[in-house]
């Protein structure tokens, strides 16, 4: 028998990764169903009701099978190599973000000492994938969608990074696990409530800017259906399109999970006596709640115009983030 011991870490990592891929797929299936249900109920209708009997719960499975057996069309005019490469980059950028999400103290892909920084870096890969998809499609809608998306995502990356600096500053570390550990012992210790009102402002800025990062409404200009058909993935069909979709739902989960980690106490319960309920349930619960808020906003707010989008980012979020950063910095220094 081969000695497995030296490879134990590797085997555990591989099993964990497979688990995460399954989790992401299940989450995306559930989220598409939930999104349609939320949309339906907000618009005073029911959403899918037929497939599977109970509130259309089999609808996402039916959709997934449909996408899998659809013909894969690559336009003759497209740049084929880049067209095929783009979904890989987008999906890698999304899944790699899961590597540092702490579902519990020991349930994390890798507790990097640069965790927060790593997430910002790796999710930027999605921008390259989107720009590549838009350019390679050789289609005007895709090109406009990709250019808008790139401009929007890089602009909003700065408020996102500046808001994430505030919990980093308060914890004195970028490791996700250590940041969560610093928030143990009840909701009043969560970073969102620690330096009222500065960290609350940081949380709000992070949440809004992260909506723009994942191209969600009201910042969904890159894929504005009513003017750009489908934005950067207009030419993608079937399973290749589904990869973009999966990555988008993965990104929704990642940005919400980071908010839950650095601002909302990660796997800790709001009250210490509730810690008997396992950590991953709290972590996924908090994240799922933020995902629900993202959906709620999508079906409540109208889409912004491009100039309004840039106005909010550069003239409101950026100055406020800087002021916030310096004030929390002063607080951290004076408190010692």
């Amino acid at each position, binding site marked *: 028998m081969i000695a497995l011991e030296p490879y134990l870490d590797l085997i555990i990592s591989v099993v964990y990764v497979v688990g995460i891929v399954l989790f992401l797929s299940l989450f995306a299936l559930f989220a598409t169903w939930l999104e349609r249900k939320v949309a339906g109920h907000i618009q005073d209708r029911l959403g899918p009701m037929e497939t599977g009997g109970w509130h259309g719960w089999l609808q996402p499975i039916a959709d997934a099978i449909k996408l899998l057996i659809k013909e894969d069309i690559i336009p003759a005019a497209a740049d084929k190599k880049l067209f095929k490469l783009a979904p890989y980059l987008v999906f890698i950028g999304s899944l790699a973000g899961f590597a540092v999400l702490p579902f519990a103290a020991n349930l994390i892909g890798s507790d990097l000492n640069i965790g927060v920084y790593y997430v910002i870096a790796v999710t930027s890969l999605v921008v390259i994938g989107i720009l590549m998809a838009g350019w390679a499609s*050789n289609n005007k809608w895709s090109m406009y969608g990709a250019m808008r998306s790139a*401009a929007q995502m890089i602009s909003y990356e700065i408020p996102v990074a500046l808001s994430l600096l505030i919990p*980093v500053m308060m914890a004195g570390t970028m490791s996700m696990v250590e940041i969560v550990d610093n928030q143990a012992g009840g909701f009043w210790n969560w970073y969102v409530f620690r330096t009222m009102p500065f960290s609350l402002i940081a949380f709000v800025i992070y949440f809004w800017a992260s909506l723009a990062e994942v191209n969600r409404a009201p910042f969904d200009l890159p894929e504005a259906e009513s003017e750009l058909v489908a934005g950067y993935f207009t030419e993608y069909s079937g399973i290749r399109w589904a*990869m973009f979709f999966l990555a988008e739902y993965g990104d929704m989960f990642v940005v919400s999970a980071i908010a839950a980690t650095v601002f909302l106490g990660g796997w800790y319960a709001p009250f210490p006596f509730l810690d008997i309920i396992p950590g991953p349930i709290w972590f996924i619960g908090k994240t799922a709640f933020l995902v629900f808020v993202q959906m709620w906003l999508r079906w409540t707010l109208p889409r912004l115009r491009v100039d309004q989008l840039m106005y909010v980012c550069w003239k409101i979020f950026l100055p406020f983030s800087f002021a916030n950063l310096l004030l929390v910095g002063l607080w951290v220094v004076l408190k010692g």
Partner: protein
Amino acid sequence: MDFAPIFIFIAAAAATVFAALLVNRLIAPHKPDPIKLTTYECGEEPVGSPWIRFNTRFYVIALIFLIFDVEVLFLFPWAVNLKSLGLFAWIDMAIFITILGVGLAYVWAKKDLEWIKPSMGDIETIQRLEEQNNA
């Protein structure tokens, strides 16, 4: 060793996309024809190439982004060690941010943060072109 799981995540992501495309290739129909493979432009024949020159405001946004992103790069190590570095480091960073703040104020005053910035010259040109078209 910390980074080994990261590479496994990246490999797993690529493998997932590859597997999905492979299954699709095996079970989905594949009947391309010239009409199906044309570029979508709302049912019309595509006019011109989308690979065109783009408005320079995208370039300006990219430049401003670059400046602030590099700044964020410097802010991260500062933020991690702020507690031990104390007030002096805070004053240092306050000066650094003020310098960039002046830069932001300059770009703001130059109206490069406005997405739509028609000058009077543009408006006159548009009016002249409209008159030519009407004539």
